[in-house]
């Protein structure tokens, strides 16, 4: 029968829509209201010191809109005006300095796209398949284009003393979340950023200024950055001893596990994004990234890792940023065990869960970069599973 959406004149084709300025700063259309960050309530004691998850199952491309990019606070998202913002550099420097926001805007600027992944992303999956959705298993990640000043530029302005080996960076919020970063990294690609995806940082991402530490765990990307201290030793703060250390099977823990290893996940189909169209052409898509360099390839398996085929990268991988991949298939309607496997420019290949557990045991909360399996059944639904 003819489609009335075509044969009948619809309201939107005869009446008028909204004028400009109806929403001075736009929001997504109401029909997309399910594409939001989500929290897993049982993970943390309350939402002030907590985390939520990017709806990666519903996004495409590589840039994460700020409004749905995951949040992680230790003492809540504070509101700090640009006018009240101060950045101090002290410690082992020739001249301790204080910068205002306006000062920062006068230094030569850079634009770079980087992913930010929480070290605990996929952490709930160490012991077994637990959460049913790419948002929950892999959503502690976002990828933005940052504008800001190279940390190196600011450190050179203060003049680093020869005995300086570390920088300790801390935020202005009550958690005073601070991390020690080796000077080599600080002088390499770290950014003091004030814009993301072209606009000011959102308050939940550290407005007005945050640190960007490419490829390294998200906890080091200090928000509301207020102080950089050049030191001859690390502080060994709570976030680098009690937390963000990886306990191995024998009870010994790795520390300073800064780099995020290569990882990938199929975002669709996935438990929150089932196949609704039946058999025929199917777009399998996902994200891949590496803290050690650029993604050079992604392999996809339809049979739980028995056989692999190279996926198509939407664009060549770039350094420490998300890469989108696609595999276009003609689905015959039979069940699949979907997996993706990332490869990076250092020659690293994303391991299986069994391979990771063989080295690290079951108690490492952080740095789970194992291959993910979605079990897609004949009706198109998908479930988070583990396979032999």
């Amino acid at each position, binding site marked *: 029968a003819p489609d009335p959406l075509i044969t009948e004149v619809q309201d939107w084709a005869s009446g008028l829509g909204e004028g400009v300025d109806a929403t001075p700063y736009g929001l997504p259309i109401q029909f997309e209201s399910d594409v939001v960050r989500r929290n897993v309530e*049982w993970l943390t004691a309350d939402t002030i010191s907590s985390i939520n998850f990017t709806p990666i199952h519903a996004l495409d491309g590589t840039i994460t809109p700020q409004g749905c990019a995951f949040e992680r606070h230790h003492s809540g998202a504070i509101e700090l005006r640009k006018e009240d913002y101060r950045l101090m550099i002290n410690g082992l420097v020739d001249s301790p300095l204080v910068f205002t926001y306006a000062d920062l805007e006068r230094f030569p600027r850079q634009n770079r796209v980087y992913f930010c992944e929480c070290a605990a992303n996929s952490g709930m999956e160490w012991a077994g398949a*637990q959460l049913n959705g790419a948002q929950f298993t892999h959503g502690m990640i976002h990828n933005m284009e940052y504008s800001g000043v190279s940390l190196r530029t600011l450190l050179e302005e203060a003049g680093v003393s020869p005995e300086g080996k570390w920088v300790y960076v801390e935020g202005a919020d009550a958690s*005073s979340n601070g991390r020690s970063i080796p000077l080599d990294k600080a002088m390499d690609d770290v950014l003091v950023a004030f814009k993301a995806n072209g606009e000011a940082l959102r308050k939940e991402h550290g407005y007005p200024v945050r640190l960007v530490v490419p490829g390294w765990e998200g906890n080091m990307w200090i928000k509301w950055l207020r*102080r950089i*201290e050049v030191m001859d030793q690390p502080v060994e703060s709570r976030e680098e001893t009690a937390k963000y250390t990886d306990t191995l099977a024998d009870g010994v823990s790795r520390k300073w596990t800064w780099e995020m290893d290569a990882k990938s996940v199929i975002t669709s189909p996935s438990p929150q994004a089932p196949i609704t169209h039946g058999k025929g052409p199917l777009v399998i898509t996902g994200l891949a990234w590496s803290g050690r360099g650029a993604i050079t390839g992604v392999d996809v398996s339809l049979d739980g890792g028995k056989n*692999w085929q190279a996926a198509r990268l939407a664009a060549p991988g770039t350094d420490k940023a998300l890469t989108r991949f696609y595999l276009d298939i003609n689905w015959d309607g039979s069940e699949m065990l979907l997996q993706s496997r990332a490869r990076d420019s250092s020659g690293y290949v994303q391991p299986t869960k069994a391979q990771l557990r063989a080295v690290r045991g079951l108690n490492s909360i952080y740095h789970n970069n194992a291959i993910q399996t979605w079990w897609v059944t004949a009706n198109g639904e998908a479930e988070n599973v583990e396979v032999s």
Partner: protein
Amino acid sequence: EKYGLGRPALPEEVAAWDLDVAPDGTGLPAGSGDVFAGEEVFAEKCAVCHGDFAEGVGNWPKLAGGQGTLDHDDPLKTVGSYWPYLSTTWDYVNRSMPFGNAQSLSADEVYAITAYILYSNDLVDEEFVLSNETFMDVELPNADGFILDDRLEAEKHFWNPEPCMADCKDSVEITMRALVLDVTPEEDSTGAPAETAPPDESAAEQVFDETVETTAVPDPELVAKGEKAFKKCKACHQVGDNAKSKTGPILNGIVGAPAGHAEGFRYSKAMKTAAEGGLVWDEAELAAFLAKPRKYMKGTKMSFAGLKKDSDIEAVIAYLQSYSQ
């Protein structure tokens, strides 16, 4: 190249913000505090989240206990069992605590709280005074429990120029399904909580099936009082219909039961030995245990300092008796 931007940081400004303390004590201000003072400040400012005895309330961090668990399933990581440096505790309490009122503590209060946390972990005795002078005398048990990131070596085999592309394994079986656990938040409601607790919380569910001989029907008023006092125990212990063993064993039917009786609970060696020796939790033994657990039984896992008032002990026992089954 210098741009001549910014201005010199004044000494007072640096002093106001440069508060971090390093493992070698660099950055510690002069001051001191003892366990006793620490207990008071802790009760007032910390216990609401961390429990009177640093045992943690709900999902809030436990600060005490867990020694010897790091190579077990679900290790308990606390200042005593995990943190390598005492400076971290001092620094974190000083700059980031109490939650919602950070940077409100005096240096002496921070020394006192830190001393109390050490005491709660059985690392110092109750006479201990922590100061900038005694600070470096304290070594935490897990100081040597860390290695530097060794992934490049230990995981060298993940760098693999030619990963397998075809016939990589003989068979593929599903070994675990997320739907079996059902801990995923509901999709349509914004952030609706999962109804089931995560799997690691659900320890073996065991209820005593022994017939317990009770001496008398408990006095309802005393039971009600006991229920209140039991709040201190609730962080670890459950009683009642849906009770399970959690951090501590389930307590249904504990009054009159033989020691170490909750099946599936990993008791301390000390408790197992006492059980083998025939210890029965009659009212007198329970009362002695609850007054000073770690004095009564050296090596017990119960990281609770004890109920101070005899009337609370009596009431808690009456309350537990009301779940005698």
